[in-house]
């Protein structure tokens, strides 16, 4: 249900540099000290959704081929094929996959607006309701994606820049989330990718994610 996670990065008074200086690096005390938040924590918000990896660790391990790679570069999840072995979720280094542990609709143990007709009208009718035992994750708004592509196809033209945006990009008030066509050199997203600040999360794992972040630059002189 909550596919967007806000990572909060607490800083502790113990750092790797300090640990190496005072010789406690690698000891149990060192790790313990690292887990205590400092008195003046620094916080960055880092929404981590499905990174839509080009070398997705989740795609290769599904025994029934329920997750595959789309032509737009997104990682697709076929709810109706998933048998729920959860290997994909274990293999995801970003841990963005969510499993449907119970039946959440028509079930009065949970109140997610899905127990009666009125409540169900809150839901988007274009989005499939996932059954119990099925894995789900951010799909880059696949329903909107398809609708945009098919409209453009019917009109016999390419999808224009800015015509399609994911819901998260639409919702963000500060424009912190940008969606676009990376192959289009003029798009905002392609320009941001060339920026010195851009980095990919856990790129050393070799997943080749399609989501990249920009390093937060802070002026620490004036606290």
């Amino acid at each position: 249900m909550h596919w967007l996670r806000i990572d909060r990065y607490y800083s502790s008074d113990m750092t790797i540099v300090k640990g190496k200086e005072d010789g406690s690096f690698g000891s149990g005390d060192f790790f313990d000290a690292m887990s205590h938040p400092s008195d003046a924590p620094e916080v960055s918000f880092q929404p981590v959704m499905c990174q839509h990896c080009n070398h997705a660790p989740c795609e290769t391990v599904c025994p029934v081929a329920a997750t595959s790679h789309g032509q737009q570069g997104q990682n697709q999840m076929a709810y109706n094929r998933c048998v729920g072995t959860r290997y994909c979720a274990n293999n995801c280094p970003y841990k963005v996959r969510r499993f449907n542990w119970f039946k959440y609709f028509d079930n009065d143990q949970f109140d997610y607006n899905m127990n009666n007709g009125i409540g169900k009208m809150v839901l988007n009718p274009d989005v499939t309701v996932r059954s119990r035992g099925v894995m789900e994750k951010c799909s880059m708004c696949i329903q909107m994606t398809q609708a945009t592509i098919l409209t453009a196809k019917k009109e016999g033209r390419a999808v224009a820049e800015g015509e399609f945006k994911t819901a998260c990009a639409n919702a963000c008030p500060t424009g912190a989330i940008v969606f676009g066509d990376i192959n289009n050199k003029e798009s905002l997203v392609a320009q941001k990718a060339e920026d010195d600040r851009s980095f990919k999360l856990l790129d050393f794992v070799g997943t080749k994610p399609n989501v990249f972040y920009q390093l937060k630059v802070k002026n620490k002189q004036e606290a």
Partner: protein
Amino acid sequence: MSNKVLQAMYDDDDVLIKAVKMTREAHHHIEEVYTPFPVHGLDKAMGLEKTRIAITAFIYGVIGLFFSVWMLNYMMIQDWPHEYWW
């Protein structure tokens, strides 16, 4: 030649093997030898044909190998590859 059928019981497998060898040397026909446990060398002493179980098992294995390689190629590459647009 009279058709006499002799049935003999032995309580020792070494004696049995010797008896089988002697009977064969005297060119008498051995209909069957029953033992409650396997006696090493009995089939050779009796002149039993070797079985073809081992070689046929190997051949079945080779067939299985070829079938499985063909199946994998058909399913994953020919019929419906996971990324099918190139």
